[in-house]
């Protein structure tokens, strides 16, 4: 099971954090901090794996990928294959966010959330095909767009009446 997905920038600020077991806010922040603490001390060209037992408890594994100013981090237990998770980060996230920079992620915070929900579901991988993921996400955005245009009408009407 995947325990957490995080996107942290190289200054240690979380850009996205999702924990699949409920944790208190303080605990979440503590975990993000400790993960960053270890990540930032790692050199380039080393493996993408890190011991996470001391942070997340026994049998935890951590796989990360460093892109420009961002770390993509997956934490999971022994039921998952490390390279497969790394592959997931590379293949799926990479394709969904091709050429994204940190700013895109910061300002598309909600979009990132929606996409992640189509990749990882309750701690399990839902979909690995980026085409399928983008299809699902586009469907949601269409739905939002169409229903928003409808609901906006009564708002203007009621706003006008109230005046």
């Amino acid at each position, binding site marked *: 099971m995947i325990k957490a997905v995080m996107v942290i920038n190289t200054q240690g600020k979380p850009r996205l954090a999702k924990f699949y077991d409920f944790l208190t806010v303080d605990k979440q922040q503590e975990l993000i901090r400790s993960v960053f603490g270890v990540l930032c001390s790692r050199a380039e060209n*080393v493996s993408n*794996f*890190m011991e996470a037992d001391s942070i997340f408890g026994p049998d935890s594994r951590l796989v990360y990928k460093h892109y420009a100013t961002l770390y993509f981090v997956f934490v999971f237990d022994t039921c998952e*294959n*490390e390279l*497969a998770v790394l592959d997931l980060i590379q*293949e799926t996230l990479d394709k969904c966010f091709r050429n994204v920079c940190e700013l895109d992620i910061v300002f598309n915070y909600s979009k990132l959330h*929606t996409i992640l929900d189509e990749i990882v579901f309750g701690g399990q991988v839902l979909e690995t095909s980026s085409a399928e993921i983008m299809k699902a996400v586009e469907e949601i955005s269409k739905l939002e767009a169409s*229903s928003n245009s409808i609901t906006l009408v009564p708002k203007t009407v009621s706003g006008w009446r109230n005046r």
Partner: protein
Amino acid sequence: MALSSMRGLSVFISDVRNCPNKEQERLRVDKELGNIRTRFKNEKGLTPYEKKKYVWKMLYIYMLGYDVDFGHMEAVSLISAPKYPEKQVGYIVTSCLLNENHDFLRLAINTVRNDIIGRNETFQCLALTMVGNIGGREFAESLAADVQKLLISSSYRPLVRKKAALCLLRLYRKNPDVVNIDGWADRMAQLLDERDLGVLTSSMSLLVALVSNNHEAYWSCLPKCVRVLERLARNQDIPQEYTYYGIPSPWLQVKTMRALQYFPTIEDPNTRRSLFEVLQRILMGTDVVKNVNKNNAAHAVLFEALALVMHLDAEKEMMSQCVALLGKFISVREPNIRYLGLENMTRMLMVAEVQDIIKRHQAQIITSLKDPDISIRRRALDLLYGMCDVSNAKDIVEELLQYLSTADFAMREELSLKAAILAEKFAPDLSWYVDVILQLIDKAGDFVSDDIWFRVVQFVTNNEDLQPYAAAKAREYLDKPAIHETMVKVSSYLLGEFSHLLARRPGSSPKEIFNIIHEKLPTVSTSTIPILLSTYAKILMHTQPPDPELQNQIWAIFNKYESCIDAEIQQRAVEYFALSRKGAALMDILAEMPKFPERQSALIKKAEDAEIDTAEQSAIKLRAQQQTSNALVVTDQCYANGPSPIVPAVGPLTLVKVPSMSGSEEHTAVDQALTQSNGTLTKVDSQPPSDLLGDLLGPLAIEGPPGAAVQSEHSAVTEVEGAPSAVDVAAIVPVGEQTNSVQPIGNINERFNALCLKDSGVLYEDPYIQIGIKAEWQAQHGRLVLFLGNKNTSPLDSVQALILPPAHLKMELSLVPEIIPPRAQVQCPLEVLNLHPSRDVAVLDFSYKFGTNMVNVKLRLPAVLNKFLQPMPVSAEEFFPQWRSLSGPPLKLQEVVRGVRPLPLEEMANLFNSFRLMICPGLDPNPNNLVASATFYSESTRAMLCLIRIETDPADRTQLRMTVASGDPALTFELKEFIKEQLVSIPTAPRGPTTAPPAPPVVQPTSPAMALTDPGAMLAGLL
């Protein structure tokens, strides 16, 4: 809109980003939260768009680490909104902010259910996502059936069905009953025929969870998994978007192979053959290429295939092929592959026949110990640690020691611990062991725990041949200019004991030894000074004929510390000073320390415990637990040749002893012993204290006679095994033949005693099963629930539980199933009715079969007299008339009890309270007396008041006078006897089994606390 940007959200985010410091950020966030709060309150003016905007802001704030503790109600109520945007916001925020125990969730269950069974697929997806992210027992109970329907109905889109599969998985985790096992296995098998890879991937994850709990029910899925794997391997019907770098869905391949590892074996020859074909193809067809991404995908599959091959017990040829591949991987440049190569090689160690092939890679592995990546260094260390045995221990440990000097800080602790354990486990001779540990202390003293140096002292004390060598070594280290404090401790301890053996060597006269140790005194901390003082006293004693100059010097030191602020130091100084003037008495009291009783090293025990904790629940690991020789302690032969105060332990509890004094020629014996000791190691758990302090304190007999302790453990074990005679078990068995004894984990007696005082806990545990107990007591009725938990991935069968009740208890045990499924827990209620007062104990005769092991244990059940007591406060007005009216035997009995384990009055009062005999303070004018009362319930006596008075003698805590009174002669007698049993052997003291007879009068340490500080303190303790 989630996907096009929300302006307000962007503005807020950029505001937060522009905050120069945390303080400003907090202000900005607080302002925004205030704004959101007011906006939500005047709900009228909020459009769905605004609601959504605020909710995303809240989520952003939440991610930054601020608690968002409002808006939960609003979020939940949005779920029931009819329109998509509001509903979406409701679901997203609920799943992020609320946990499964939140009360508000209950309000939403109906809406969620309606969305799931409704025909709107987008609503279904929203609801499934929320349920899948939160989980929750209540959701599981009310929604699982509907989710199942979505999954198996082919009329829904794959998008819905794959979410349903994972949602079901999450619900199953919370409550395994939601998946009806009978019908579900067939459904699951059908799901594996699915064409859509998205649904198939999710279904495979679900299958992994299901088979990991109960593979028996899902045999029918096994061939289907193999077929899925074949389909992928042959690239049949795989859409392009699931193919990465020409590899058909690596994720699904990995998951499928993972699922297959939960089946213990594959019996059908055809299925097995097809699977091996696929595996062979993966093993042969993967090569390290330039493209990193392709490498990762291909090797993800390859490593999973390796794990599966290991699991399936492939032929040696294929295994060797795997090791060869791994050997290649650990030398490639790609760090990820090197990392996994080392990790998998460590797992491969569990396959006995390839261990020798792995050893050929030792040089390469040692190179990885110097890799720039700490993750890889750690894996290399683990592998070296795992592959170490008597044949290569010297090389590996010396390599570790060498590396220790250059290793970075983060790894030193682990390195030194591992080196110490290996040195102890596999020492070819003891002098080498002493060398290694002293080097360790020298190089990484900060990381050498007390455990380690205590252990050295223990070995040296127990092995006369070793003593001069160790003393000489200690002397050498003292010459070094700056040494670690631990080195000061260990060397001064050793020299205090054994420096007289060096007397004729240059630089080792008592005076010289004293001077060099005393040089260190100004540099050490208070905890070390007592050890030095003891050493001085010992040096003084060994100086024959006395050297007046040295004597004066040492006396001066004692004099100086007589007024030390530290009580421990002060006491020693005073006592040693007084003693050293008594001449002959000094000789007696400060004589050489007796030999230590043989124990398992606390260090190794710790290491083993840790290994058990992290045991991966796969068949490979299980087998490993049965196979790997947990090497035994390098033992001494103090029982064989030295006068020992302790009866040697006989029976199955004895560790196989290796006559290590004769050293290296005994290698083969060590090997044999290693194999023979398999499976018999857990027994050490039942030895009283296995921490090293305990080890060192052992010979003082403060804790009661170890001989008796051994005896009772012995009987506990025979009881467990149902074995005819312990001696049979202890007899040498041919190598390779495993004794099928299953050893309990923990001490059964202690567990029973603990349960007499509390109402829930573990009654019994062994590697296969854990029996827990939970009890409720109401007057003369008791309701116990036995929790029978199977710890394995295969079922326990022929389970039988028989209650053997004593005459005074009526007991009814509900049906116990004959088979306990893997990893399952069965609850068996047991009704108890107390007919009349008695101290007899009910016994549970429990047996089960695991593989070919038949295990039978007889366990006492904690349905004891005190459980039918109810604490009852009485006032003076009530007490005295009652007390007087119960005038004498047989209703009131008095007895002087001797041989009581001495304990302070307060503790005795606690003890009574813990037996539900309520201490009533103030009733007895004498502060040394205790008065207690309780109501006892049984069918014959009904509710009966019991009164107890204990008169203690402050001058002699080992005796007391006890008076017990009640309206029933049998009750009075039984209660009196019961209390007596408790006082004579205190079960709360975890140090010794309770069945031990009362401790003989022993010299009590003048200050008990100090006796625990260090071995040197024992000397003072004896004074």
